[in-house]
């Protein structure tokens, strides 16, 4: 089997401008939603109490809501969780009341309404922990960005490192944009997924940049655009297969992982899909706009040993 039967290099960069405009629009939309709607942060960030309650027969969500209203928790959110029998109740922080009191009171109320109710999980996070998590998340993000830019600048060249990081931030922001638009719950595992996507997406750009560098060496007569096109064409098969595999895993988590992994898997699916697109059309195109040249990557006289030993060096197919 061979999926890709490519006779000559696909002129990806010819449509770079179109795709970059689309990217800018998508990015702007994501930023817009992030600012207008904001992220639906889980209680891990905001502080509060989450309870998961299981019922033996379909949970009566309206009944639970009215029970909570009677207890004085009009601001509580009640949602079905995974299946019809489980509900998740979110209580924001209440002043002068500890989570212990909150959860005990709520559970007592629910048991009074239905003795079959079963407390499956309770989580309480204090407000200071939440804000720390948010800062730590931002710090982790900053460290990832800095580390990747530094590494790529050393291994390649600053134009590539800047192009890669912009492309990948583009992915991350768009994933966040989806979470803001649909108000999906943004929890700690989702944050982990987003940061993993950042690493993953750079991974993707690096594979293409690697090939760009190699093709600059190999095809001395090619223009920059031709080199980039050929690099993407050479690697497109790997790109699609690798992402297919990773997506298979992410979908497997999405379908079999249950509600606890639902948004985690969703963030990965969007992130992986975006990173295929961005490494081809955004990272490579940005590098092109920044004006990478053969001289940027191939230092005069500084050929790598693998190149000098390359029996196929200079071979044109």
């Amino acid at each position: 089997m061979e999926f890709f039967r490519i006779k000559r290099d696909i002129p990806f960069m010819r449509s770079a401008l179109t795709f970059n405009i689309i990217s800018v629009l998508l990015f702007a939309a994501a930023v817009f939603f992030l600012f207008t709607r904001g992220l639906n942060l889980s209680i891990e960030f905001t502080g509060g109490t989450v309870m998961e309650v299981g019922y033996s027969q379909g949970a009566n969500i309206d009944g639970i809501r009215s029970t909570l209203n009677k207890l004085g928790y009009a601001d509580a959110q009640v949602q079905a969780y995974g299946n019809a029998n489980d509900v998740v109740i979110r209580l924001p922080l209440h002043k002068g009341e500890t989570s212990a009191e909150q959860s005990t009171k709520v559970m007592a109320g629910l048991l009074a309404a239905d003795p079959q109710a079963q407390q499956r999980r309770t989580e309480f996070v204090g407000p200071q922990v939440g804000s720390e998590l948010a800062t730590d998340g931002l710090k982790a993000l900053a460290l990832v960005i800095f580390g990747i830019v530094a590494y790529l600048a050393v291994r390649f060249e600053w134009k590539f490192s800047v192009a890669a990081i912009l492309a990948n931030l583009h992915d991350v922001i768009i994933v966040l944009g989806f979470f803001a638009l649909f108000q999906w719950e943004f929890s700690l595992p989702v944050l982990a997924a987003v940061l993993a996507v950042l690493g993953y997406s750079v991974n993707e750009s690096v594979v293409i940049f690697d090939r760009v560098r190699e093709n600059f060496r190999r095809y001395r007569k090619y223009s920059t655009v031709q080199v980039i096109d050929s690099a993407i064409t050479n690697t497109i098969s790997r790109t699609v297969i690798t992402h297919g595999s990773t997506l298979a895993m992410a979908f497997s988590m999405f379908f079999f992982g249950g509600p606890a992994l639902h948004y985690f898997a969703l963030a990965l699916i969007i992130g992986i899909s975006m990173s295929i697109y961005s490494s081809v059309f955004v990272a490579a195109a940005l590098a092109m706009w920044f004006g990478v040249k053969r001289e940027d990557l191939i230092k005069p006289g500084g050929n790598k040993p693998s190149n000098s030993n390359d029996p196929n060096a200079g071979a044109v197919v």
Partner: protein
Amino acid sequence: MNRYPWWKYLIMVVVLVVGAVYALPNLYGESPSVQISSTNGGKVDNALLVKGEQILDAAGLKPDSADFNGATANYRFSNTNVQLKARDVLAKALNPDADNPQFVVAVNLLSRSPAWLTALNANPMYLGLDLRGGVHFLLQVDMQAAVQKKLDSIAGELRSSLRDKDARYTKLERVGDTVQGVFVDARALGAAKELIARQHPDLQLSAQAPAGPNSFSASLTPAAVTQEEDYALKQNIQTLHNRINELGVAEPIIQQQGRDRVVVELPGIQDVARAKDILGRTASLEVRMVDDSAAGQAAVLGQGPLPAGDQIFPDRDGGKLAVKRDVLLTGDNLTDAQPGFDQQTNEPAVFLTLDSKGARIFQQVTRDNVGKRTAMILFDRGRGEIITAPVIRSEIAGGRVQISGHMTVQEANDTALLLRAGALAAPMTIIEERTVGPSLGQQNISQGFHSVTWGFVAIVIFMSIYYMFFGVVSSIALAVNLLLLVAVLSMLQATLTLPGIAAMALALGMAIDSNVLINERVREELRNGASPQNAIFHGYERAWATIFDSNVTTLIAGVALLIFGSGAVRGFAVVHVLGILTSMFSAVFFSRGLINLWYGRKRRLHSISIGQIWKPEAAAATAGALSSEAAAGAVKSGKSLDAPTPRTTKPRRKVH
């Protein structure tokens, strides 16, 4: 060129065997068990083991196995339902007096692995609470309170030393984070300053006098503050250990987190309310003298000013007493506290045992103060309450103290428990709490397991069809990666959580990337006309630079998560990072080994099984074709040639 020296194969075999041995315990898994250990003099031995079995038999709960390991009796059960019932039955039968239990009956998980595995220290992965059920608390220690408590005790010492020297002060107490003193004359101030310089090097005097010339203000040096905070945290952790022992939890985790936090994880605990109650109580005990002077009593009744150096606390009967500020003894001097009954009156009582320093102080205090009252003040959540204020009848030597009067049996038990568990050096509050029921944990495990399995199966099927033999090798490498990842996690006894399982799935998805890079590269080399041996060689060589770069960048992200993550994120990051490392080994080194083993020895290799190599027609005609055995017919020319390798007329002999 595609041969490994023997020692590389040896490494492969050794790694594989070690990986298999350490991953194996996870297959056996853990069985729910009930563990009986001793407390308050209960004796755990073979006789008790048999007795326990009889109790279980009578209740119709048959354990799968029962054993006594020298310290605890363990009964294993087939499921958690029976386990919980058995725990209740055993606890009831073995501890007839629930207020004074002789045994701790706790639920536990025991490895089902055979003894030889356990002897090799091979244990299953440690499952996080989200997978096994239990309670997680994050407690915040109030460090300011710890510092203030230290300053209070310094102020107390200064007061009594200055009294001995007849240096008179109108005020000497802690104000915020400082100790402030106001003296009647310069001589008294000088004496105080001299005393501080000599006896309290951890205090630093501030340059400003807070109230007039004959006053001072002093605070703890930064070093002393740090030391005090360290001490407070350690003591609190110790106290939590003691309290949790009272709860009967088999494998509690009590760990410091950051400068001022403590994580407590109690696997298998169902009774959250009780756990919270015991943990959340911030009792500390102080013994002080009661001020029964006329002025003191007048102050209690609100008919006069409070004498200097006094404080008023409520007692348990709704009354109030004036008590000296000076602390004679604290809970630190207490080594044991047991509930019991007064031999003469048969009233409930608490028996205290003091350490040698405490005994010495108490003997001196009781000698000097016969006929006066001491107050035992319990500070709970910052509020002091006088538990009891017994009259000192005679000098008490030897450090054995009995407190009796006005107590119910329950109160005596509670008081003894709190005193025995030790006081907290500083109050703590629960700032994070998670409870996961055991059924939810089971569900999380099976769902996580399913997502890994199905994703894995999908990848293996695709790879094997698309890349034929190379795909099978990639799949084997992927399986080895999973094996190694599980083995490393088991060896490190890192905690596996649900995000960890997710990271495992993601790691597998990403690990296949290295193999795809290699396989695509090998195909490309073939397409460009390289000989099979050359294609394998250069495929692996050239893919390596890319694999290395891309994995390092992913590793950077993983390490950042590890540094800044906590809880769920950290669980994810640990597996993520380990998965990248194991994938470099399995996808590059191990798969190369297998390919070398299969193809490397063949001198004249005509074709390799890596799926169809499609070529543009023109290229196929000019560059000389080579195709895989599986898809020979698919090449337009139908040629399956031993490709000419003009540029490598001298194949390198170097062994890779």
